């Protein structure tokens, strides 16, 4: 129970930071101050809060859980590819969005799209698709909170109650502190979970008597495949490099890019981003793999047994039985189990707080949704002009409460593991929306009809994948279930982890078709007025 108390103390500190930010801003009920901290963040807060915003529950819980079952491939799949693609997109797109925000007062991506392509309701449609795709991300945070508090308290705090506490704390500091509170809390949290990886590695390594013997034992066991990628398809590995394109298309990341006081603050963020990812993911993935040698923990043994039964007998089981075994084999709490086994109680509490820090990254998504609703819908359709800016900020706060309650209700019912839920819906969808930003900022010839085609395509593709995976049950580990193979050529199949199109994850055709649609539809439709285009591209050659 001591670790749980330390975590509760941590939650109180986080809440206080949010309320302190509220006091700092009191009397300034301006939308730009509440939603963007008056575009005044310094270099350190900007780096740490932007990075913290992008590190959700799955950075620690999901990554170690995925590594526990799939091995070292987890790091190459998500961490190192993100370390290249995300800072690159921040460098190319984030800086341009920042400049446009300063110049024209944009507070959301849709405001820029509406202005750039001279559109109204198409912007509203883009907002709606972004909002629907963002909600799973918020749900992940709440699910992670429930899982973590349950594990830290040794089952005393049930999942529903832990999720409720996390939802309440996040909602409160976002409600009061707005962007300033969220950025400060994120900075504090990022500092914590950067420390977490190193400390967890040292403590658990010492507890296991060093990693060399564990790694050697794993290498000579039937689980040796976890130390290489022999069971992973290179197509699947390549597909994952498309997923980090989602980061810059996530509205909360792009909105965060607008909060920097100066453009030079991006420099440190771009350079240090890959190293920050390395500092968090490397220990988590490594520990997730090594957890397979900790057979003295009964829960870990039970997970391995579930995995073994699924692999050997899964083909003869009903889909429901397979799902039940998958849930038993899921390793999202494996890091917590290692800490309980090897860390002293007080340290387990501190490290648990570090995990909570990552889990609670859903704050920025909640704030972003609120910003988008109040700016792209409420203000755009006349609410701001009619009722004033103070009512606009209050509307944003009410929206924060409603969206948190909604996400909590879903989190209680969602059966998917944290990792899969995020990847299959949110990440792929936003990655396929990234051509919107590239076209708006780098191609004079892009049009609102091209943007509409891309957004409709993304909505259909995400819905198709979600429905397909709901209707066709996942097969047991091993060969996929072929769904469409004209002339024996395998086009569409259901894999144990999701869906494959020509062997690739759906994100690959989704991004490529989005790009193609933008080019083809824009080429056939009327361009925006020359003066509008000139405001974005000036006299510079593009």
């Amino acid at each position, binding site marked *: 129970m001591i670790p749980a108390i330390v975590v509760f103390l941590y939650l109180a500190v986080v809440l206080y930071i949010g309320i302190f930010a509220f006091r700092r801003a009191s009397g300034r009920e301006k939308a730009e101050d509440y939603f963007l901290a008056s575009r005044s963040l310094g270099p350190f807060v900007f780096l740490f809060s932007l990075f913290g915003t992008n590190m959700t529950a799955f950075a620690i819980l999901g990554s170690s859980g995925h590594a526990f079952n799939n091995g070292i491939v987890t790091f190459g799949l998500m961490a190192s590819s993100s370390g290249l693609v995300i800072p*690159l997109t921040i460098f190319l797109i984030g800086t341009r969005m920042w400049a446009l925000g300063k110049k024209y007062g944009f507070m959301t991506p849709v405001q820029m799209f509406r202005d750039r392509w001279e559109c109204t309701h198409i912007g509203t449609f883009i907002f709606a698709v972004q909002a629907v795709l963002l909600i799973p991300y918020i749900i992940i945070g709440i699910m992670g909170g429930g899982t973590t508090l349950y594990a830290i308290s040794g089952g005393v705090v049930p999942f529903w109650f832990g999720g409720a506490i996390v939802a309440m704390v996040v909602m409160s500091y976002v409600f009061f502190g707005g962007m300033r509170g969220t950025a400060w809390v994120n900075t504090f949290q990022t500092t914590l979970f950067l420390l977490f990886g190193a400390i967890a590695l040292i403590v658990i390594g010492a507890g296991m008597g060093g990693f060399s013997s564990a790694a050697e034992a794993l290498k000579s066991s039937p689980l040796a495949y976890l130390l290489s990628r022999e069971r992973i398809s290179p197509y699947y590995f390549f597909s994952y490099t498309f997923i980090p394109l989602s980061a810059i298309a996530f509205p909360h990341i792009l909105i965060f890019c607008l909060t920097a006081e100066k453009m030079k603050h991006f420099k440190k963020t771009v350079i240090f981003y890959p190293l920050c990812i390395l500092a968090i993911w490397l220990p988590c993935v490594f520990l997730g793999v090594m957890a397979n040698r900790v057979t003295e923990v009964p829960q870990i043994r039970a997970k391995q047994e579930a995995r073994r039964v699924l692999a050997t007998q899964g083909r003869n089981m009903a889909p429901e039985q397979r799902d039940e075994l998958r849930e038993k084999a899921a390793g999202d709490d494996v890091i917590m189990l290692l800490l309980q086994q090897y860390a002293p109680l007080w340290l387990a509490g501190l490290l648990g707080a570090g995990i909570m820090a990552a889990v609670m990254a859903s704050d920025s998504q909640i704030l972003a949704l609120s910003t988008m609703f109040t700016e792209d819908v409420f203000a755009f359709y006349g609410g701001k002009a009619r009722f004033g800016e103070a009512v606009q900020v209050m509307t944003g706060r009410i929206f924060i409460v409603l969206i948190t309650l909604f996400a909590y209700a879903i989190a209680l019912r969602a059966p998917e593991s944290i990792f899969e839920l995020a990847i299959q819906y949110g990440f792929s969808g936003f990655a396929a929306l990234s051509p919107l930003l590239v076209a708006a900022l780098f191609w004079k010839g892009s049009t609102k009809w091209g943007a509409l085609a891309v957004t409709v395509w993304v909505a259909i593709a995400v819905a198709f994948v979600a429905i397909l995976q709901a209707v066709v049950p996942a097969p047991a580990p091993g060969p996929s279930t072929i769904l469409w193979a004209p002339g024996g050529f395998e086009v569409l199949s259901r894999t144990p982890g999701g869906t494959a199109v020509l062997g690739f994850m759906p994100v690959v055709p989704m991004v490529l078709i989005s790009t193609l649609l933008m080019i083809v539809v824009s080429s056939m439709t009327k361009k925006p007025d020359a003066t509008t285009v000139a405001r974005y591209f000036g006299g510079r050659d593009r």
Partner: protein
Amino acid sequence: MKKILLVVAVVALYILHQDIWFWRSSHLVFGFIPIGLFYQACFSVAASLLMWLLVTYAWPSHLEREVEIPEEDAPR
């Protein structure tokens, strides 16, 4: 020329992410880190160095200048 070299460096690093040469190896570097994981960790450091090159040699300083001298026309 500088920009072309940087683009080539970005593309090269992206290709190097697909390290098929260590695909099936479970060799342990320093006796405990699987070589596939070690390679990808080094890749992350290389990505950081590449970002430093981009920031140093291809920084879009024209954007900063544009913001300092705001245009009169605001969005509709």
